[in-house]
């Protein structure tokens, strides 16, 4: 075997509008090697890989495959260079069998014969030890089987370079072991494998080398054998930056929301919450740190009455001393109990607001049922809308503008403003500053702090560790649906939280 790399990236840059997603990245992968790409959310891992697989085209830089410079402008081009990518969101037709999905879209000029394709699929599964039936329908499959189909799909098209975007995020530990065994076998077969991940233990157990990306830049590539969890974490999260968020000391705290041992399974049968317990106190901001998709959404939705639980209970203690179990109650029933729970969901326009309605009508979402009249009262929502537009400096022509037309930051101000106006006792906010500019972000931080000082129990789900550490009083860390630890926001270090986010429990981290 010669010494040229299977794939080599030189000085790759990619910009989306004003955002620099990748800046001057260099990366090379050998044949018969597993390369892990490690980085936080938004560090540019997926963008980089998308440029290899033909989804994006780099603004600057060169890509070499087997030593030759290539231009990859479409997924088809990528296939021609034997590059295949397995995305996080599977692209499969539900009612088709595995084989049908694998051959879909191939037009090789040969006669179409499913039995022949099926034979070839079986050949691939035997060669690498996949565990799948070629005739099974996708909708009868588990997530891991669907992923297997995606991998075989890529292999069937003759890929030598496989890119997997967070393949383990949706798998159980046993399934992960199986996947890794298959990947190792492919490596031994001479294929190059690039795996995007956040999970440190996986990096260490699987990869030959690790490339670390942070904020779009390539920080370092290290040999897995000669590195450690702490070194990788430091490379990944970088040095702590102080944001000067004004954090006051909590006073008069009491246990407002006590979540004990809740578990939940999603529609695909995957456990998304695994015996989660924590307490949210009044007058305090509780941060929830974790890699995106570790169960944060389900956790908040469970409290709001939108996610069915298989076990556990959610106890709400009102300031008046009553307490209720919120489990098995619908949002309406929770409201009828007099529980003042506000929720700023992650999906602002798909869940928190109705995009085509104006600001006034969106204000009404929370309050329209008030009173016995069959008619809507638009007076107080209008007043509220005007107040929010005024106080939070929402940039909008008027309060009758559909919220879809507003910019991201203004949409969020409308949503947060409405949720706060409901005078909550518990305020949950999922990624409230995602996609917002600095000024809007600080507006939101200030609003949350104000609520905290008013004695509200605030639950803040965030992804930026600097923000979490500067804003929150306590931080719990969630990884794969499990709580891996709890730290004090004033004293914890970024590394400490970072390690727990990648699935190590607090004990292992210390």
């Amino acid at each position, binding site marked *: 075997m010669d010494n040229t790399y299977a794939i080599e990236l030189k000085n790759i840059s990619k910009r*989306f509008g004003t955002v620099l997603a990748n800046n001057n990245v260099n990366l090379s992968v050998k044949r018969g090697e597993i390369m892990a790409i490690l980085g936080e959310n938004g560090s540019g891992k997926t963008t980089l890989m998308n440029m290899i697989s*033909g*989804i*994006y*085209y780099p*603004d600057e830089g060169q890509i070499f495959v087997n030593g030759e410079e290539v231009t990859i*402008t*479409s997924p088809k081009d990528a296939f021609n260079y034997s590059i295949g990518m397995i995305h996080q969101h599977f692209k499969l037709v539900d009612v088709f069998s595995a084989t049908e999905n694998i051959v879909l879209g191939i037009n090789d000029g040969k006669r179409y014969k499913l039995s022949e394709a099926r034979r070839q699929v079986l050949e691939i599964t035997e060669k690498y030890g996949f565990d799948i039936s070629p005739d099974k329908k996708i909708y009868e499959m588990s997530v891991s089987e669907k992923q297997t189909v995606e991998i075989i799909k890529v292999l069937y098209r003759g890929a030598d370079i496989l890119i997997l975007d967070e393949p383990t995020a949706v798998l159980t530990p046993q399934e992960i072991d199986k996947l890794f065994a298959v990947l190792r076998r492919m490596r031994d077969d001479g294929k190059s494998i690039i795996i995007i991940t956040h999970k440190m233990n996986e990096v260490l157990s699987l990869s030959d080398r690790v490339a670390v990306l942070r904020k779009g830049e390539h920080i370092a590539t290290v040999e897995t054998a000669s590195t450690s969890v702490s070194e990788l974490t430091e490379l990944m999260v970088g040095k702590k930056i102080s944001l000067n968020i004004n954090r006051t000391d909590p006073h008069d705290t009491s246990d407002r929301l006590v979540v004990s041992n809740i578990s939940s399974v999603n529609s695909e049968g995957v456990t998304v919450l695994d015996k989660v317990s924590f307490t949210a106190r009044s007058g305090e901001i509780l941060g929830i740190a974790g890699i995106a998709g570790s169960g944060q959404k389900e956790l908040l939705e469970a409290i*709001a*009455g*939108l996610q069915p639980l298989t076990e556990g209970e959610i106890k709400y203690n009102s300031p008046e001393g009553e307490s209720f179990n919120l489990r098995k109650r*619908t*949002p*309406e*029933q*929770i*409201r009828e109990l007099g529980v003042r729970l506000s*929720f700023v*969901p992650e*999906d602002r326009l*798909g*869940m*928190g*607001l*109705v*995009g*085509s*309605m104006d600001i006034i*009508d969106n204000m*009404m*979402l*929370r309050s*329209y*049922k008030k009173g016995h*009249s*069959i*008619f*809507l009262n638009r007076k107080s929502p209008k007043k509220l809308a005007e107040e929010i537009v005024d106080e939070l400096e929402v940039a909008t022509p008027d309060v009758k503008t*559909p919220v*879809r*037309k507003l910019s991201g930051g203004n949409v969020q101000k409308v949503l947060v403003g409405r949720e706060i106006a409901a005078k909550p006792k518990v305020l949950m906010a999922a990624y409230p500053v995602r996609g917002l500019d600095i000024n809007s972000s600080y507006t939101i931080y200030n609003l949350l702090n104000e609520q905290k000082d008013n004695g509200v129990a605030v639950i803040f789900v965030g992804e930026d560790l600097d923000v979490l550490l500067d804003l929150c009083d306590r931080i719990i860390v969630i990884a794969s649906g499990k709580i891996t630890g709890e730290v004090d926001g004033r004293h914890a270090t970024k590394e400490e939280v970072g390690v727990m986010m990648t699935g190590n429990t607090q004990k292992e981290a210390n």
Partner: protein
Amino acid sequence: MSNIATKKHEPLFHIVKRNAIPWWKAWIVRAISILLAVVVCSFVTILLTKQNPVLVWGAMFKGAFGTERIVWRLFRDISLLLCVSLAVTPAFKMRFWNCGAEGQVLMGCLATFATVRFLGGTVSEPLLLVISLAAALIAGAVWGLIPAVFYAFFKTNETLFTLMMNYVAKGLITLSIIYFQWENTFGSQIVSPLRIGRLPKVYNDHLVIILTVALITLFMYIYLNYTKQGYEISVVGESENTANYIGINVKNVVIRTMLISGAICGLAGFLLVSGKDGTVSPDTADGRGFTAIMVSWLAKFNPIYMIITSFLLVFFQFGSKEITRSFRLNDDFSEILTGIVIFFIIGSEFFINYQIKMRKLTKEGK
């Protein structure tokens, strides 16, 4: 996925969704589309009739506004179509494709007619009207309820379900006519008009219908825009996720809305039998259930705009009937013209919602 930059085979143009254009621009687009439709209709008319299009359009206006009697009938027919259109609108706003208005109207007709036949003579005339109205409302509501329940609980495809229900309703009418021996002569399947249980005459035969539908229009406008239930319908239609998030019981809203939708269809059936035909047949609804879908959709589900769209369609019907008479063509000419006009208006929505961007000569597509 963003537009993939390809130097080799970038398409000549690509389509992007518009952010929304000012309302006046949208109306200009629609006006242009109607104008184009008129031009095409004229060409088609010349082609098929070899007549001067000015004469033809003149005949159309004569057919719609020729005499006072015609104008009254025009407005009566607009009202009846509008009534059914108003009925389907709340369901559409909820994104429930109720294609079963025809059947719901027919059930209203059947209930009205049957009530009068069975109770006629045993109760006073006003009471008879009230009972037959109630029967019509219930019958229409039940016909709307059945597919709604299955949709709410099992997501049974509502478009296909409601379509089938139309033909079951038609069959039930024929069956009733035979079974209850309503025919005027055995085997004719024609039913003589009722003499009792008819809407009272106010000024003329049509005013009561027109006023009733005017009230319903007002009601529906207020219901959709100013009541809590109407608000819930909009939220469910826009996003079931949001509806769940704020604690709206989606199943309840679906069922409740279809009850209302069906009941107003039933009312239209009552008006048809009690106020217009006096008799019942599988064709009493005369396709209004289907035309109503177009009226409602073309008006963007706004009850006030629906007055305009139903006017437009009924105008074409009346006008082309006159063309038929003047130029000895047949009635169905109106349906060709109606089809062309609708095609153009439907097509124009694309230019309101999307924008065609020609190829840029930059390297990057985004």
